[in-house]
């Protein structure tokens, strides 16, 4: 019964995490998402974590893994809506989520995915660092 819904929006998958996930739920999401990417051939994945007050090492690593796996399946992942406190805590925790692209909010995340889709298989993914995440109006 406990599953995080995954919506398909054109060529992108949209995941909005609205509950504090226990570990198994997080693992299930990782699995579901991978399956859906494979099934739909989605090119982009947007994960909205704006409702999450806590992202601990487990959830952080889940996001990291999802990003890595989707990239291997031909989809780029962007995590949006991370709260500042969560971001700071993650850094202090020693998790920098180097493989995950971030954006400030859903709008920018979708714009980012749109750009990737236009560019096709651009080389952008070689530099997946914080560039896009931080180009907004300061977080």
């Amino acid at each position, binding site marked *: 019964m406990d599953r995080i819904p995954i919506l398909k929006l054109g060529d992108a998958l949209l995941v909005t995490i609205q509950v504090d996930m226990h570990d198994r739920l997080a693992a299930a999401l990782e699995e579901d998402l991978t399956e859906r990417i494979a099934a739909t051939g989605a090119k982009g994945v947007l994960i909205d974590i704006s409702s999450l*007050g806590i992202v601990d090492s*487990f959830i952080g690593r889940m996001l990291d893994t999802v990003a890595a796996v989707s990239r291997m399946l031909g989809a780029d992942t962007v995590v949006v809506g991370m709260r500042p406190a969560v971001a*700071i*805590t993650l850094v*202090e*925790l020693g998790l920098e989520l180097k493989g995950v692209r971030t954006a400030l909010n859903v709008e920018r995340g979708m714009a980012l995915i749109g750009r990737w889709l236009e560019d096709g298989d651009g080389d952008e993914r070689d530099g997946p660092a914080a560039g896009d995440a931080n180009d907004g109006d300061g977080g």
Partner: protein
Amino acid sequence: MTPVVSGAGWWPILSVPIAVEADVVTARQRARRVAELVGFDAQDQTRIATAVSEIARNAFEHGGRGRAQFALRDAGGDDPPEAQRQRLVVRVSDDGPGFGDLDAVLEGRHRSKAGLGVGLLGAKRLMDGFRVETGAGGSTVELEKALPRRRSRLDREDLGEVVARLARERAVDPLNVLSEQNRELVRSLDELKARQDELARLNQELEDTNRGVVALYAELDARAEQLRQASDLKSRFLSNMSHEFRTPLNSVLALSRLLLDRTDGELSEEQERQVGYIRKSTESLAGLVDDLLDLAKVEAGKLDVRPADFTAAELFGGLRGALKPLRTNEAVALVFEEPPADFPPLSTDEAKVAQVLRNFVSNALKFTPEGEVRVSAAHDRDADRVLFAVADTGIGIAPEDQPRVFEEFAQIENPLQSRAKGTGLGLPLSRRLAELLGGEIALRSEPGRGSVFMLSIPRVFSGVAAVSGAGLAEPPIATGPRDRGACVLVVDDDKAFRYALRQMLNGAGYGGPAHDVVEAADGVEGLRLARAEPRPDAILLDLRMPVLDGYAVLRALAADPLTRGVPVIVATSTAEASGADARLAHARAVLSKDGLSREALVAALRGAIAASRAAAPEGER
């Protein structure tokens, strides 16, 4: 495990058990709330909650079960200012096997797949104080965070309020309630689904059953149809077979009559007796066949009711004469009660009523060794029905046998049975005839005292009576000049019957006209002879013949101008030959072969010939 408590105050706030995975979530949420309530800012709340999450997960993953205790440590007043700050302490303990190489973990050299290293190290980084005690009996991790400086000190009362608030919130944690409701809903949905499945299954089962019932009905219908066909077949068989029997019987009857009439010379006394026996036996056999045929006809619905007006007195008068010969026992009186003078006339089939009564009487005479057989009639004014009763003083019928006497071929064992001959068909036939007339038969009997057979019928027959055919009516006997001998063509495949007819028509020794008789054994031959010179004056035609049957011959005769004027008399034993049959319209008369007498034949011939001569403008002959 030594509680890490300094001499200062240790004010417990909350304890959260860690037994299942979801408890890790609960622990970090509680941690966040506790941190908020004791005054930490959002950033620290997140740090504390994250650290608690890491350590609680550790406890769950490695220790299996444990708990997280939240408390406030209040240093004593004599401590240095920095140390005097109040601290939130979270102590997470488990019963697990311990961490093993703790140093390696803490130095970041250890990496487990559950992220243990990161967890412990990270938590340590997020908090101000971090202590671990681990051993074979379990581990305790104590996390500490100093309350913000700007926050005023919390006294025990403040803390009491925090504790009370937490307790309240736990009771009505909306998320918990929601997820509980959610689970409830899912359960209900599952139940609903199960019930629906059950319903669908039941429905399916019902449908199957229904299909079975429908199939069963179809089968029953088929069976009923088969039975009907079998019954039909039986009736047809009986009817046809009876005809087959009847044809030779008629010949025997006619020939024996010729012999007895001395048509072919005198008979010796012995010969006469023998021929008499032949005739008697043949008559009884014919009677048996008649009964069978009647029964078959009734069953096949072929027997017509011909209503006519008559009175009970007339009926009794006729019966009295006809039944007298049946009374062979002098010790039995046959009494017909005179119907009252105001007895209303009947309008029904007299012949059938008479047949039923004849059966009753002959039956009664058979089983009455002495006494009387009394026939009476009564009129029921209210129902306008007539009740005929035949009462005897005979041996009677036991109650258990009473229903059986109306069954075909049933005969009850009794001392008189061997003496009384019968077909066993009389009473069943009577019952069918009564039904045909819209009435019924009843029986009242007592063994040793006698029986009363009753026939109750409507006074006026109201059923759909078949129109009696004009062709069957006896032709009027011509009153014209005496016939000279006429030429008669007999068309019949039955040689014996042709012979009998010829004997009748030759009429030697009768004083009547001697007719010329031409014979044809089948329809084709018959047609040829009918057109040949000399043209016959009349044609006697059988209906059932091989090659060309009587109907076809009749049609051909009617169509040919040469033969159209020749009167045709149909002589047949075929049951379906009725005057109502349009195919027989051309026939001048239809005679039944049963009991055909010379007189009737001659009369019919004379009438037909006279009528055709009258119709023809100038007699050719």
